[in-house]
């Protein structure tokens, strides 16, 4: 099957600055994919190249098999992009915007689908309100609605939940998950890693314009064997035997965070505490998550860069 997105040896340079450095990436149809990285890592540059807003310096990018440069009409017809910036046109109301956006994609009578999007994004009662009069969260919903008017098989959401309240976040993800189940490929960038972990199966991490990690979240988390044992104890003096572990003391809540690699270490730590006569008031074990992978990846890459 043709990949939804295929990027080969893609680079973008602005003078001395390299925004994207020889990237290869393939996203299959039907995937729910996360594109992660710190600010300035190159996520938005990559999305902008796919959307045709930025021209690559070298390399190729394809959407549903079509080249984003030479076959831009085919790729844009198949792509729905929710831009990161909260932009709007102050001359029009929500319905006018959606009708016009449909028209740009060559769709004349789109009212049934527009009504459904308005309903699903909880915008139905704002349909005749001018964009200027909407709150930030509402404007964000309109941007999402605009990206969906032409039912694109590939949807890219560039930080769609930045500055959005919890209610909308929930309903938004339900809607996007539904779209994904209906067969749409969804690519997401977000700074909320728990969102990516809950929704996506595969993830790419970008750092300084390069893909440094590309794998399923399951595999990534499995490779990290960094568990954290959280302990609240009856005393502040720890037995000497614990020195062979990295122990961090968190004054808030008087917690000790001990990093371990294997479950068997727990038994050793507990016996050391018991021998020292220290009572355990509270004990938790934290599993590694995507955030740990992210932090570790970013740190590792920094070390390589040094």
């Amino acid at each position, binding site marked *: 099957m043709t990949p939804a997105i295929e990027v080969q040896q893609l680079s973008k340079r602005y003078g001395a600055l390299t925004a994207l450095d020889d990237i290869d990436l393939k996203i299959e149809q039907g995937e729910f994919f996360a594109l992660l990285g710190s600010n300035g890592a190159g996520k938005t540059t990559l999305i902008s190249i796919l*959307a045709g*807003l930025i021209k690559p310096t070298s390399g190729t990018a394809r959407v549903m098999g079509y080249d984003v440069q030479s076959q831009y009409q085919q790729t844009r017809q198949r792509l729905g992009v929710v*831009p990161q910036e909260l*932009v709007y046109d102050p*001359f*029009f109301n929500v319905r006018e915007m959606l009708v016009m956006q449909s028209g740009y*994609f*060559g769709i004349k009578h789109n009212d049934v689908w527009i009504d459904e999007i308005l309903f699903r994004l909880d915008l139905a009662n704002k349909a005749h309100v001018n964009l200027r009069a909407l709150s930030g969260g509402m404007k964000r919903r309109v941007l999402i609605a605009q*990206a969906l008017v032409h039912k694109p098989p590939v949807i890219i959401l560039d930080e769609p939940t930045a500055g959005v309240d919890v209610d909308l976040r929930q309903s938004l993800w339900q809607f996007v998950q539904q779209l994904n189940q209906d067969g749409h490929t969804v690519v997401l960038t977000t700074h909320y890693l728990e969102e990516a972990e809950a929704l996506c199966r595969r993830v790419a991490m970008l750092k300084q314009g390069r893909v440094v990690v590309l794998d399923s979240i399951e595999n990534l988390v499995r490779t990290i064997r960094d568990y954290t044992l959280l302990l609240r104890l009856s005393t502040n003096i720890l037995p000497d035997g614990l020195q062979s572990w990295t122990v961090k003391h968190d004054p808030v809540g008087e917690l000790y965070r001990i990093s371990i690699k294997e479950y068997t270490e727990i038994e050793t730590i507990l016996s050391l505490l018991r021998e020292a006569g220290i009572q355990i008031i509270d004990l938790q074990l934290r599993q590694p998550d995507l955030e740990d992978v992210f932090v570790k990846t970013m740190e590792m890459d920094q070390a390589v860069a040094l």
Partner: protein
Amino acid sequence: MTGFYTLLYKELLRFWKVAFQTVLAPVLSSLLYLMIFSHVLAERAQVYADVSYAAFLIPGLVMMAILQNAFANSSSSLIQSKITGNLVFILLTPLSYLEIFLAYVVASMLRGLVVGLGVYLVAAWFYPVSPQLSGWVIVFALLGSAILGVMGLIAGIVSDKFDQLAGFQNFIILPLTFLSGVFYSIHSLPSTWQFLSHLNPFFYMVDGFRYGFFGFSDFSPYISLLIILACLVVISGWALWMLRSGYKIRH
């Protein structure tokens, strides 16, 4: 073609929603020019025999309104979309550069023509004057508005700030329209200024348009027509190249 029609509709709706500012205000200011200049210059400036100064002035004012408003429409729409960032809504679509070009230019032409018609109707109510050769009037109105619509498009693409666009408007469009023979016949000018006026493409637009009203003009309408057709081709080629290459809008 649905994409083109939609963008055209959006551009028309944009100025129509603020018609007070985009249509009525320029009609009023043209009327003020007519009142003041025809009053002050009526005795002093007989341009053509059998044509009063007010009657001479009206076609010039109508053409000036057409040109200035055609320019204002595409340039202000583009710069607003660029600065607020909503140009992205058009850039993300499969609209071709030709469709974008045509939609902006045709909308600008229509705005120019609506304002021009408004100026004519109001002015003719005060000083009745009617075109002798309507065909020439229509052709020059269409071509003039198209050229200025394209110029507005270029100015909107090139400018990054409102300030720069105001520079285009105040240092290029305004002097060229005021010095194009709207208020006077260039035959009344010293020879150097006559020569300079012939380098001003706006002169041929105004002069040819006026030919349609009176059947005579400062310059041959056929040559004027050829000159402004050439201008339209050159400037459209330039604008299309900019849109096609994504100059300043697709980085």
